[in-house]
């Protein structure tokens, strides 16, 4: 090994070429190569002078392959060289991930050039950095895959744990002493296998676990409509369909900012560059309430904006999942947010139509449903190879064209996820944010989450949720009747249902992402607000039951209740409860 520090322009680890071929045909990203004798489906080949990565999509006959390039192939010629790397598309994993921003192939974007011409990004981007290495195993220890070899502190409060790689086990023959190490330096030898900080993993292959567990502990998102009505358990799956202008991106960003996971992987998959710039600025400025540090330090951002290469966009979903699984294996609760899975599906469509596959619905490949299912199946709460608990929760945005919920991506995704948060244009139009509609959303985790709350002593949680859902459904049933006969034509009890539903919508479900007090909400304040709305509704029902005219009850100013979400800090439940008692007294005076 040459340890001269001057060779910075050449790549630190040139690909170990198994064979060299020659380009025969170029048609957009599809490149036919001749003369590569050993390669397999989905292996990576590097083509042309700028070594563009491409994925083998067919192996036709002796040494002739067709590969799909991940970047723009302009200028590529017949006769250009090609070399097979001998492995499928792999992500380079390591402690630099946290706080970083990467493209769809996990190549660092920070410190990269202003304009991303093909071939300018390299996975080994941050190769110069040195990391503090604290061994957690000693020479002679017998370890197996998933055990912790060492800890590497990162900028934030998430400790990076160097694990024995999957499929490796045996005695620790050598391990480096405490000190600073480089990314590609050998830091340990386990069972004859050299371990470095940088680990390579094929992104399309799920990382192995010991066993899957049933998700039950809720992921607290700080968003009331989610946590109270459509909760998601850690390790579960959510789809968020919504047309443009329904606040999808703001909702996902709220979850990035406020959810109680240890590590967040945000995949900006074919979305807006300006939005991403905005989110990165926000994340850098926001402080994690738990660690007191920048939120960016527990976040890995994969940014493949809509104008970046389409095939890298297809890969970005899997790359992000691999990163999430890596931190899960360290024993962390991770959340993968993908905005938007529709753009990923479009990349699949683009690829399949170019390779001449028979199109199914709306030009999407027939394998779309199974691709979506396989992606969401990589979520889960698990016992890791190392024996600890970890989870990957997947939240995928869906962008139905024209708001059409019957289109293939939306309709397939709905079948495979455990929770659906449907964003509704009418609610967004009425400035009811987050615009998650209770009519078309569901949570199949609600039962398990209710039991979890019950076991933690919050016995009212499940019952309050049921009452809230019933009240909203009843109000929806009455709405068309009101349009026919007018409010005055309804019986007093029904008028109170409408009043109660309004209290619930305005005082509990609506939440302002821009307000300091309201952007996030602790579980205690959430329950108190729900309790406030339901208690007032019950008291109003009692009043009309005792003969007080509905119009009199409707005239009572209840703004004091609906303003509470914004008036007191995110964790101040006791003020809400005090306000409830005050408001109940006001109502008692009416009776």
């Amino acid at each position, binding site marked *: 090994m040459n340890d001269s520090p001057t060779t910075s322009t050449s790549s630190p680890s040139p690909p170990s070429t198994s064979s060299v071929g020659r380009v*025969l045909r170029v048609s957009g990203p599809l490149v036919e190569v001749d003369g590569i004798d050993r390669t397999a489906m989905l292996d990576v080949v590097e083509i042309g002078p700028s070594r563009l990565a491409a994925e083998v999509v067919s192996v036709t006959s002796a040494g002739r392959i067709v590969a799909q390039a991940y970047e723009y192939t302009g200028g590529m*010629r017949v006769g250009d060289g090609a070399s097979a790397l001998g492995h499928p598309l792999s992500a380079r994993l390591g402690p630099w991930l946290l706080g970083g921003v990467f493209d769809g192939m996990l190549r660092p974007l920070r410190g990269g050039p202003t304009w991303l011409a093909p071939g300018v990004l390299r996975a080994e981007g941050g190769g110069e950095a040195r990391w503090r290495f604290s061994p957690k195993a000693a020479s002679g220890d017998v370890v197996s895959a998933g055990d912790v070899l060492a800890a590497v502190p990162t900028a934030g409060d998430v400790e990076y744990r160097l694990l024995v790689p999957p499929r490796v086990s045996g005695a620790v023959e050598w391990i480096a002493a405490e000190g600073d190490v480089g990314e590609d330096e050998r830091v340990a030898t386990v069972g004859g296998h050299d371990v470095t900080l940088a680990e390579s993993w094929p992104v399309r292959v799920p990382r192995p676990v010991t066993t899957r567990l049933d998700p039950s502990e809720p992921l607290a998102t700080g968003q009331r409509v989610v946590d109270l009505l459509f909760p998601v358990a850690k390790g579960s799956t959510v789809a968020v369909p919504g047309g443009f202008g329904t606040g999808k991106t703001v909702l996902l960003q709220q979850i990035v900012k406020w959810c109680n996971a240890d590590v967040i992987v945000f995949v900006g998959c074919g979305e807006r560059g300006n939005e991403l710039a905005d989110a990165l600025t926000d994340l850098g400025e926001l402080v994690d309430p738990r660690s007191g540090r920048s939120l960016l330090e527990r976040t890995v951002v994969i940014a493949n904006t*809509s104008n970046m290469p*389409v095939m890298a966009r297809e890969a970005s979903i899997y790359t992000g999942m691999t990163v999430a699984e890596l931190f899960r294996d360290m024993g962390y609760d991770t959340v993968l947010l993908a905005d938007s899975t529709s753009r990923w599906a479009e990349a699949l469509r683009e690829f399949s139509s170019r390779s001449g596959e028979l199109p199914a619905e709306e030009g999407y490949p027939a394998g779309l449903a199974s691709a979506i299912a396989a992606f969401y199946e990589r979520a889960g709460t698990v016992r890791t190879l190392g024996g600890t608990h970890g989870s990957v929760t997947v939240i995928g945005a869906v962008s139905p064209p024209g708001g059409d919920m019957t289109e293939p991506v939306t309709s397939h995704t709905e079948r495979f996820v455990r929770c659906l948060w449907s964003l509704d244009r009418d609610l967004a139009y009425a400035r009811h944010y987050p615009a998650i509609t209770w009519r078309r959303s569901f949570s199949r985790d609600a039962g398990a989450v209710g039991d979890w709350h019950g076991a933690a002593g919050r016995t009212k949680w499940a019952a309050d949720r049921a009452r809230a859902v019933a009240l909203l459904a009843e109000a929806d049933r009455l709405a068309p009747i009101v349009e026919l006969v007018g409010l005055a034509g309804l019986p007093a009890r029904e008028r109170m249902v409408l009043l109660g539903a309004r209290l619930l919508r305005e005082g509990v479900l609506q939440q302002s992402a821009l307000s300091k007090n309201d952007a996030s909400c602790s579980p205690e304040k959430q329950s108190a607000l729900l309790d406030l709305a339901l208690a007032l509704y019950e008291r109003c029902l009692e009043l009309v039951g005792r003969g007080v005219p509905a119009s009199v009850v409707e005239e009572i100013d209840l703004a004091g209740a609906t303003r509470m979400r914004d008036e007191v800090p995110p964790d101040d439940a006791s003020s809400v409860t005090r306000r409830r008692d005050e408001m109940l007294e006001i109502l008692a005076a009416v009776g």
Partner: protein
Amino acid sequence: MTGPGEFTIPVEYQGAHSVEGPLLVVDKVADVGWDEMATVRLASGEVRQALVLEVHEDLAIVEVLQGTSGLDPREVTVGFTGKPFEIPVGEGWMGRAWSGLGEPLDGGPPMLGAEMRPVAGSPLNPTLRDVPRDPIVTGISVIDALTTFVRGQKLPIFSSAGLPHLELVTQIAAQATAPGEPFRVIVAAMGLTHVDAAAIRRALEKRSATGELALFLDTADDPVVQRILTPRVALTVAEHLAFDRGEHVLVLLADMTSYCEAVREVSAARGEIPGRRAYPGYLYSDLASIYERCGRIRDRPGSVTLLPVLTMPAGDITHPVPDLTGYITEGQIVLSAELAGQGIYPPVDVLGSLSRLMRKGTGEGLTRADHPAIAAQLVAALAQAGQVRDIAELVGVAALTDTDRRYLDFADAFRTVLVSQGVDESRSIEESLERAWKVVSVLPQRELTMVPTEYIERYYVSSEPAGTEQGASRNAAPASGEGNG
């Protein structure tokens, strides 16, 4: 020094193998790169441009941009340039009118420049993007007050056939400024009729003469393949001015529906599998490769702001062109046939319109401190007025409360005082906000729940003659309001 379409030609091939639709197959070639430009010289001496679609062993399949009519494959000379379609960049583009490919339309010399850039551009590293901020002042009240353009934003106008979107675009092109900063306007017209193109040229002559504006005109009878390059030519010029010279550049692209139809036509000619409404499956990525070229770069002064205009076929906002556009852009300005029918210009449907980045371009130090609050109040009150109108149609105006009737007056004042404007009338931000206050002042103060009291005390226009609706309307009318500014 080279101009667009003038290349040093390294290799030429006499005669081609065959021609099919817009595609020409050239055989026995070597060293031809995918997506590079070629020139096709006909027997008549006419030179057309072509793009390499596929190279396969010794064959190159090229797409002739100006079409293949009159082309005999045995008699052509094909030269490969070894480069993608490039144009020179520089100041020389400004103040003149060009074809969609950058050839002079005004009888002047071709554009020459030392530096050539491929029109396809490269994606901007997202970590170096800066967040759009600061307003562009269009001089049009309803836009400046309620859907402010922010420098670096992409904000489309959704229109329908027959609405005055071209007038609006022309007016914006003629009037828009970034107060206190160097500002340029580039108009790229795609698939316009000759009448419309001529009207735009005439209307923009004055600004063009100052060197602040450049026009790229692709007319409806130009070959469709050329139309695909027009917005990219305009954006390549804009990126240079913005990011190398630090200027604020507004790029207007009209009509993107014609552009998308050209993409569909070319895709069909290439035999690609059609997606929704027969547009190719990559339409989203293709549009993004245009729209995402707007923005700002960290630690550099300039910006590219994009204003695409599209006509919604049959007024359908769920059609793929407006739908995919809406998914990429940061808001939209919707024009309404109903307002146009009432003779209101510009007929902006305020409730359907939104500038998502408005927060970054308005307020203290940018426009005026009260701007975000008054804008929110106007939109909320307009929504309320719409509900009141629905009720009034059922029960009659007479049955309304006094407050509700004030809302109806408010809606009228909103249209006449704030929205309605002459096609060559430019209003300052101050004036637009004055008008906004005049309009909300039709409502009683207690209804202005979204505006902090200090602004109400400062700007609310009290109506002394106690409020009959007639009095309120008169008070808000522009004629009587002019004196007290």
